[in-house]
Every structure is written in C-alpha cells, then in structure tokens.
C-alpha cells in the first residue's frame, strides 16, 4: 500500500471519489506524519486531531452518498493568521495568547464548505512580519530541505514558513497562506512548492488578522501547479463582509492547465537583473525563458523603471497600516493582559510583553511616518510612488505583454540564525526585492519550482500577471513545471 500522504490533492480527490481510500484513512495518515515530524520541523503550532477526524468522517458520509464537494476529504493545514472558530488563532504572537475566535474566516469557511478537513494551525512569522519564520513566538520552522552533505538547519522562508514546510514535508495535502510582500511566494521558492498570491480582492480578507490591509491577500501553497489551481478555486469568492473583495466570477483554474502558450508575450524586466545576483539564478531565469519559448511564447524585453523604489515605499506603507491595524491589541478585548499602574501603563506593558521585536519595530516606524509633520514626506510620498509602480505594469500590459517572468528570491534558503541578516533588518527586507512590486500594484504573482542550486536547494521562478488573470499564470507555470519537474526533500526527520 502506498503512503497516502504521497498523493497530490488531484490524486487523492480521484481515489476518494472512487472510494478506493477513505477520508478517515487519509486524515489518519497525515496525523501520524505530523506526529512523527513536528518535533523536528515545528511547522504546526496547534494540531486538531479530533476536529480532523470528525470532519473526515462527515466527508466519508457525503462521499458515500455521492454528494462530495470539490475538496471533499482533503486534509489541509491553515496558517495561524486565519480565524478558525473555537480553535487556536494567534498569528503566532504572544499577545493573542489563548485567543479562540467565535467566528470563521471566509476563506477557511469556503474550504470547509467544499469538504476540506482541518489538520491544524501552521506556524508563521508573528503577524506575518518576516521573511524567515524566525519572528514566531513559537520558535522558527525548520525547512525540510537541507544542503547536500550539510546538517545545518535552514529557514523555510516567511512569513508563511509553516505552510510551505508542511506542504513540502507532506504534513498536509495543501495549505492556506497569506502574502503582503512575498509571504506566499518566497517560502514556496525555498521549499520547492507552488504558491500563488492572487489579485488583490480575489480572496476575502474577512477573518484574517490584518497586517497591511491594502496589500494583504490570501492564497494557497501546494505541491504542484494543479493542486494550487484546485485550492484557489475554492478559496476565492465574492464576500459582502470584505468591501475590497471583487464581484467577479471565480474561473475553473484547473481547466487552464495544458492550454497552449502560442502567441503569448512574456516580458523580461531588465530592472530585476540586480547587482550581485547569483549566476545560478540568472541561469535559471534564462532556462525559464527557453522553456516558455519552446512552448510557443514570445520573449520580449521590458522595463519597469520604478522597481527599485517598491521596497522603500513598502517599508513606509506596510508599517503605517500595521501600526493602525495592531492598535487593537491592547489587553482589553482579547489575549494577553499585563497589569500596570493605570490604563495607559497597562496598554504599554501589555504591548511591550506581547509583541516581538520585529512587530514593535514596524509599529514604531508606522507610528513615526504617520505622525504630525511627517505624513506628507513619508506616507503620501510612498503612496504616490506606488501609483508610479502600478503605472509601470499597466504600460507593459497595455503594450501587449501577457505575463512577466522574473526571479523570486535573491538566493536559496539561508540558515536559521543567520548573523548578518539578524543584525540588520534592512538586509532581511531585501529578501522581498523581487516579490514586493506585485503587492504594491495589487497583481497576481505565482512562484513555481524551477530547479536546484549547487547545494541541492530549491530555486523558483516568478510569474506576474494582469489583474484577475490567474488562469494565465497557472497555464504558464504548468509549462515550466512540465519542463523542470517536481522536487521533494529527502526525509531526515
């Protein structure tokens, strides 16, 4: 009998439907895999075996009655940022200690409506602020990938590090994640998984702890392009509870796979060829172009002149929005309270004890750039630069480019506790140099594994599309996947 955790969502779906396997069996396989691995990988912050088995049992009943949904019986992990009713939801922060919401996020509700099974909540950078999953109150996630011949523990990327590690290590069939500046795509690249940040407004933000509201977007991390397409179809919806959710029908993304790229124009932005970029990444990028050309696409050079300003503008806009969103954690309504001399002292002590260093740093920056006398110089200026970044993309799309191919990360996964990155926050922020423009412009971006570097570690390529044209990204990524193959880590845990 094959290990059931090795099945992709598409495979498991077929076997569940034909009743060759049961949802309970499949869920039990994942629960024992989690049991065996989580001590080493720290991907889950809460495992929910009772809920999982009850949901799986209900799925089996629906499958037996021939009434299964699109994800009936598929066991998933959920990033700790999504509200799950009555279940651990703490954004991997100390300040939300003990928080068990009385409501369910729209995205997770959509998944349960489709029949999916909840295995537990996944580790992440605290409040999704980080690129290495080291800012979690629950400690770092360990990447299932290791460099060849090395025992050094590597980061899985962040902020959705638990999601990416759990998918790569087969501790769930797929996972939910969120992306504010690269938090789906960078961890996907570090773990040889597929991640898509859809267009802003495609998935409801309702019930997802807010970091930077104008940039936050939910999406899936999955083992392959098809699974990512299947998951996004169920996650996306129009939601009256999120005024920025867009009223457009959700297409059948899976149907886009296998469609021809003939006549497509793929743009190669010259500004993404940054100084000091490793030769391997440059080579991989060229390889990606060759694969798409072979598939009938036309490769064209493009320019996105404001690219270099996306990162500095982001580090004004995102902290500004975060400082406002995180004002709600005050020791009164939920989570941690540290008593003080008076109410103001109680707020200050609670927030001092409850937030980690990176979160405090961003709240402080945000408060500063929004404070009297600085608003125009920082925030307003950054929002104007954002208009220019978006205009860059509109110009190339208007000129006939269908999608953009770019690198996703400046390197493969780095070590946990990297001294240089820990000492200088700006160095860590540079991890997001290729991903952040997409959030600033609200566009869809997909990360697809494309190869391994000289250390045997995964590298990905990024596809950027027009608003609400996720289908184009899926069909293009599928071509890259067919050419590159898929990659799994050796089991050491």
């Amino acid at each position, binding site marked *: 009998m094959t290990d059931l955790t090795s099945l992709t969502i598409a495979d498991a779906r077929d076997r569940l439907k034909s009743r060759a396997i049961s949802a309970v069996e499949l869920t039990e396989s994942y629960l024992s895999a989690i049991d065996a691995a989580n001590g080493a990988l720290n991907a889950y912050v809460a495992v929910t075996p009772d809920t999982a088995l009850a949901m799986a049992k209900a799925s089996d009943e629906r499958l037996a009655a021939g009434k299964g949904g699109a994800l009936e019986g598929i066991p998933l992990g959920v990033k700790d940022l999504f509200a799950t009713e009555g279940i651990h939801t703490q954004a991997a922060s100390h300040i939300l200690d003990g928080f068990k919401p009385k409501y369910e996020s729209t995205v997770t509700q959509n998944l349960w409506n489709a029949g999916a099974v909840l295995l537990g909540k996944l580790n992440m950078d605290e409040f999704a602020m980080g690129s290495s999953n080291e800012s979690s109150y629950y400690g770092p996630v360990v990447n299932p990938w290791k460099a060849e011949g090395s025992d050094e523990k590597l980061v899985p990327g962040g902020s959705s590090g638990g999601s990416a590690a759990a998918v790569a290590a087969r501790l769930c069939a797929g996972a939910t994640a969120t992306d504010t500046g690269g938090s789906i795509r960078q961890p996907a690249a570090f773990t040889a998984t597929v991640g898509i940040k859809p267009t802003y407004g495609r998935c409801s933000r309702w019930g997802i702890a807010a970091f930077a509201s104008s940039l936050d977007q939910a999406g899936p991390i999955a083992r392959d392009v098809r699974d990512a397409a299947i998951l996004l179809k169920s996650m996306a919806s129009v939601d009256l509870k999120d005024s920025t959710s867009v009223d457009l029908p959700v297409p059948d993304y899976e149907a886009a796979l296998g469609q021809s790229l003939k006549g497509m124009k793929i743009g190669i932005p010259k500004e993404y060829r940054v100084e000091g970029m490793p030769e391997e990444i440059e080579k991989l990028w060229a390889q990606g172009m060759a694969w798409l050309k072979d598939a009938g696409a036309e490769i064209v050079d493009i320019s996105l002149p404001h690219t270099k300003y996306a990162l500095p503008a982001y580090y004004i806009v995102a902290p500004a929005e975060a400082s406002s969103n995180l004002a709600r954690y005050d020791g009164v309504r939920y989570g941690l309270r540290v008593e003080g001399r008076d109410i103001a002292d109680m707020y200050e002590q609670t927030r001092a004890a409850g937030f980690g260093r990176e979160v405090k740093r961003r*709240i*402080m920056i945000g408060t500063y750039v929004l404070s009297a006398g600085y608003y125009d110089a920082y925030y307003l200026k950054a*929002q104007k630069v954002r208009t220019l970044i978006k205009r860059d993309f509109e110009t190339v799309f208007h000129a006939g480019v269908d999608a953009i191919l770019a690198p996703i990360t400046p390197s493969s996964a780095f070590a946990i506790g990297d001294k240089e990155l820990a000492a200088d926050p700006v160095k860590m922020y540079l991890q997001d140099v290729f991903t952040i423009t997409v959030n600033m412009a609200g566009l869809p971006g997909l990360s697809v594994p494309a190869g391994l570097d000289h250390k045997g570690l995964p590298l990905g390529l990024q596809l950027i599309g027009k608003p609400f044209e996720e289908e184009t990204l899926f069909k293009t990524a599928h071509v890259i996947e067919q050419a590159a193959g898929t990659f799994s880590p050796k089991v050491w845990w």
Partner: protein
Amino acid sequence: MSVDLATVKRVARLSRIAVTEEEAERMMGELNGILGFVEQLSEVDVSDVEPMTSVTPIRMRERSDAVTDGDKAAAVVANAPATDQNFFLVPKVVE
C-alpha cells in the same frame, strides 16, 4: 531624516509600547537604518502624481442601512481577559 533618543521614546509612547533605556537605544539604530533606506524615495519625481487610494479600480459597494448582525454580546467578550456581565473591565480611568 533621522531620529534621536527623545523621538524614539515619544514614538514608543504614541505606539503604547513600554521601552527600557537600552531598548530605546537599540531601536534608535534600527529605525535610523530603515529611515535611511527609505530616504532614496526622495530621488523620485512625484509632481502631478496622484497618491494611490485603491489598488483595484472598484466602486465601493453600498448596502441598505439595516441591522444585519448583532445580539451576541457574550461572544464578543468571550476572549477578553476581564469581563463582568458582558462588559469589558479596564483599570479605573476616572478619579
């Protein structure tokens, strides 16, 4: 622009985050690093550029002005550290 220690403490106060002298010193260095990094935006000419207010060109939805939710006080306060009869309890704020 860079911040001095007094500004860091003022911003911490505005952020309602207690900081020790040592933390304030460390944060001053970090904040100045980040502010130095974002300084490069001054190179960009933004005259006649509108600030972005919405990333997607959508019209805000409107709904009828009617009560659609509520009557769940117990659920609202369920996660609070201190409550009494569905009220949040806070330290005394009036003398």
